[in-house]
């Protein structure tokens, strides 16, 4: 029954998307209001169908309907309800269904938000989203159909991959990432709409402002949540390994971040039209590429993915989008001439252009390192991988330069500036940077990269504080209020700009945390007898006991350690190994590290092995300075992003004044 409902819903979604594509594009070319209205209904119909499809799948999962192929593949009677519900995205078919559902939701939200818009772009954008939808709903309806019928119906299933049911963050990380990936389809659709309609001026950019920041924020949070998940689950005490799957999420983030900055240059100065179109189209292509990398099996072996249909279809769709986009850009080349020119070499626009060059170089580096093994294997069959040192060698200097620019860019005026003004603006931040590095040096830090990082971080933070101070000063002059009130007004009325600064603060926090944890992390492994103590850094750990217990879906073996930090008792730390049952047998042990976070660092314990009698156990202890601040930085980014997409409330007077102060 559910099989039928699901398949019908998916087929309906595909038909709806096809109508959306035809109606939207025709409405655009004919400038027809009735056709546009039809397209909007089609978008609503697609959304309703996808709600039905995902609803049917969730129902099947939660009621353990093993006649449904996907449930038979990832479900089990013993899996706790939470992990059963989120197993929607634990395997290929379900995650593509989920992708489609998010796309349908974004499309419906576009229709709703733009319901009063008479923009020439809207029908084209909806049509483009219809075309993208046809591809994904088509996949779900055919080669990746999760609603296939299993007969005879099995009594139970294996449950999700143990790694994916070992930590609650699994409920957060994939949805955030998908909301980012898929959301980037919206600015892409408006870019295509701009090309199709020939209205390649700044309108599409103003329309998609929030449609870019929102998925960007989801993507950022998704990446941080992914790092957090691997830190909490994989047991090696790290959070980023330049694994192709991680790079897949980082690549569109790099280009989307570049785009967020370069659009400001176009809004302000009418420059970089072709570049912006290319960037956002490239960003969407990279998010498709990321889905392809993680979902086609190509990483296991270049030759494996051609055995299925998904890989070649994805590759075909990526090529199709690339060709269409290039053709459209070439077709509209005559309208893409930019009227603005670079006035001064030292100006905000030139710093943004440099920022974009660096982001482009960064993207190229990561893309090359990620695809190089695939290319080599395809050419001569050698299986190689590209080690983290390659990525670190390039990303650390590029990252530091970008960090530096983050302080320079916002403090520079548009167009041109004078030497005197430069000195006045940059003297305090430069002094702060030098002071920070000097202080670190006096405290005994000799590592070069951390010293540079601290200097740049202090530099950037000071320029941000200066910007806030300037803004608060201006507001106090206008409305004669106290500084806190002025800060509040600033955040509410000029949220886009100051939200952006808060995002910058989050990035600085993360970069500093990365630098600290990368430089000063240390670890020790030891086999301890019951009651024996070990010392690592200023921690003392005593191995107390091993205990084991049985849960419906797994067996847990946990070792208890008493920990002291200096002279302070900080209680017990309990790393464990979980043995998930699959097909009613105990199987794959998943080490579950125990993380004790302090304000400055994490104490991280992984149970490596244990004696069946409980007499001794081997533990890996890692002291990870700075790591808690990665997650705090991620939350700051989230706050800043929420602030900058919040609806703007400004009076005509404020608009006039801020326009003047921003223009200065």
């Amino acid at each position, binding site marked *: 029954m559910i099989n039928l409902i699901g398949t019908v819903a998916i087929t309906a979604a595909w038909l709806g998307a096809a109508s959306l594509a035809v109606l939207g594009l025709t409405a655009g070319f004919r400038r027809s209001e009735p056709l546009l209205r039809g397209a909007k209904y089609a978008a609503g119909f697609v959304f309703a169908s996808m709600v039905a499809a995902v609803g049917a799948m969730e129902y099947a999962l939660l009621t353990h309907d093993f006649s449904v192929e996907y449930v038979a593949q990832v479900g089990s009677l013993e899996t706790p309800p939470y992990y059963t519900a989120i197993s929607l995205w634990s395997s290929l078919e379900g995650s593509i269904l989920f992708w489609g559902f998010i796309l349908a939701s974004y499309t419906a939200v576009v229709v709703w938000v733009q319901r009063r818009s008479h923009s020439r772009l809207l029908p084209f954008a909806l049509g483009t989203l219809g075309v993208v939808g046809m591809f994904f709903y088509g996949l779900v309806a055919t080669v990746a159909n999760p609603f296939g019928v299993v007969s005879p119906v099995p009594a139970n299933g294996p449950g999700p991959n143990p790694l994916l049911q070992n930590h609650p963050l699994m409920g957060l990380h994939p949805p955030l990432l998908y909301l980012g990936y898929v959301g980037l389809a919206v600015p892409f659709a408006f870019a295509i709409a701009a090309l199709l309609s020939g209205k390649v001026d700044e309108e599409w950019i103003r329309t998609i402002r929030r449609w870019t920041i929102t998925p960007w924020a989801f993507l950022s949070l998704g990446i941080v949540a992914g790092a957090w998940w691997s830190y909490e689950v994989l047991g090696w005490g790290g959070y980023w390994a330049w694994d192709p799957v991680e790079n897949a999420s980082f690549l569109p983030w790099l280009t989307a971040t570049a785009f967020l900055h370069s659009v400001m240059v176009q809004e302000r100065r009418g420059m970089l039209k072709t570049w912006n179109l290319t960037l956002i189209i490239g960003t969407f292509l990279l998010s498709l590429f990321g889905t392809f990398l993680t979902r086609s099996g190509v990483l296991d072996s270049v030759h494996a993915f051609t055995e299925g249909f998904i890989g070649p279809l994805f590759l075909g769709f990526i090529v199709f989008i690339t060709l269409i986009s290039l053709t459209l850009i070439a077709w509209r080349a005559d309208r893409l001439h930019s009227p603005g020119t670079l006035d001064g070499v030292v100006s905000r626009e030139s710093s943004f252009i440099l920022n974009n060059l660096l982001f482009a170089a960064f993207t190229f580096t990561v893309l090359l390192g990620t695809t190089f093994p695939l290319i080599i294997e395809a050419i001569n069959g050698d299986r190689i991988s*590209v080690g983290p040192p390659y990525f670190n060698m390039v990303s650390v200097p590029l990252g530091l330069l970008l960090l530096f620019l983050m302080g320079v860019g916002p403090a520079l005026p548009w167009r041109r500036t004078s030497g005197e003004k430069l000195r006045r603006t940059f003297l305090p931040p430069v002094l702060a940077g030098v002071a920070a590095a000097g202080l670190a040096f006096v405290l005994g830090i000799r590592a070069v990269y951390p010293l540079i990082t601290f200097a740049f971080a202090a530099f950037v933070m000071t320029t941000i504080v200066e910007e806030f101070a300037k803004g608060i000063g201006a507001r106090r002059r206008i409305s004669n209020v106290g500084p806190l009130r002025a800060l509040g007004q600033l955040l509410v009325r000029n949220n886009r700009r100051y939200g952006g600064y808060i995002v910058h603060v989050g990035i600085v926090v993360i970069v500093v945390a990365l630098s600290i944890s990368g430089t000063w992390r240390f670890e020790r492994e030891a086999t301890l007898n019951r009651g024996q103590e070990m010392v690592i850094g200023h921690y003392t750990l005593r191995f107390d006991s091993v205990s084991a217990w049985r849960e419906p879906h797994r067996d847990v073996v946990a070792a208890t350690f008493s920990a002291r930090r200096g002279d302070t008792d900080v209680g017990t730390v309990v790393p464990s190994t979980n043995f998930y049952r699959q097909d009613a047998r105990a199987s794959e042990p998943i080490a579950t590290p125990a993380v004790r976070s302090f304000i400055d660092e994490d104490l991280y314990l992984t149970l490596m092995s244990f004696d069946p009698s409980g007499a001794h156990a081997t533990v890996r202890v890692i002291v990870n300075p700075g790591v808690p601040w990665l997650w705090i930085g991620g939350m700051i980014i989230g706050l800043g992003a929420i602030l900058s997409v919040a609806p703007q409330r400004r009076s005509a007077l404020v608009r006039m004044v801020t326009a003047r102060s921003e223009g200065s």
Partner: protein
Amino acid sequence: MNRSKKMWAGIGAVAIVGAVGMLLAGGLKENVVYFLTPSELVAQGTSAVDRPLRLGGQVKPGSVNWDAEAMDLRFVVQDSVSEVHVASTGAPPAMFRDGIGVVVEGSMGPNGTFESTNLMVKHSNEYRPPHGDSVPEAMYESLISSDNQE
């Protein structure tokens, strides 16, 4: 923007692209890690010494020698043709045992023993539950029963 500014901007862009390109090419060359089977590694002989490698194969049954006191782990990785001796520091991963597929990162020492820096039990990258590879519950069963008696 006048001519000379354009020229300088052009030179700057070329310089950046060139520098990044050189960095990348050099970095890739130095950081490519080959994935070899035991027979491929043996076939390479001394030319494989001291290069970062990943060795993939099966743990030869009966070859595992784990000294918990010294944190010293020795075993043999084999395929159907050849065997390679591996030395590793640190406790083996939980699933590690006779006959399991492993990937060992490290390099070949001059004495013909592969020195491991990272030992991984083979996981499927595909997000599908792996089958087979089950661990005898005996490994921890005694802990559960002893706990229940308490």
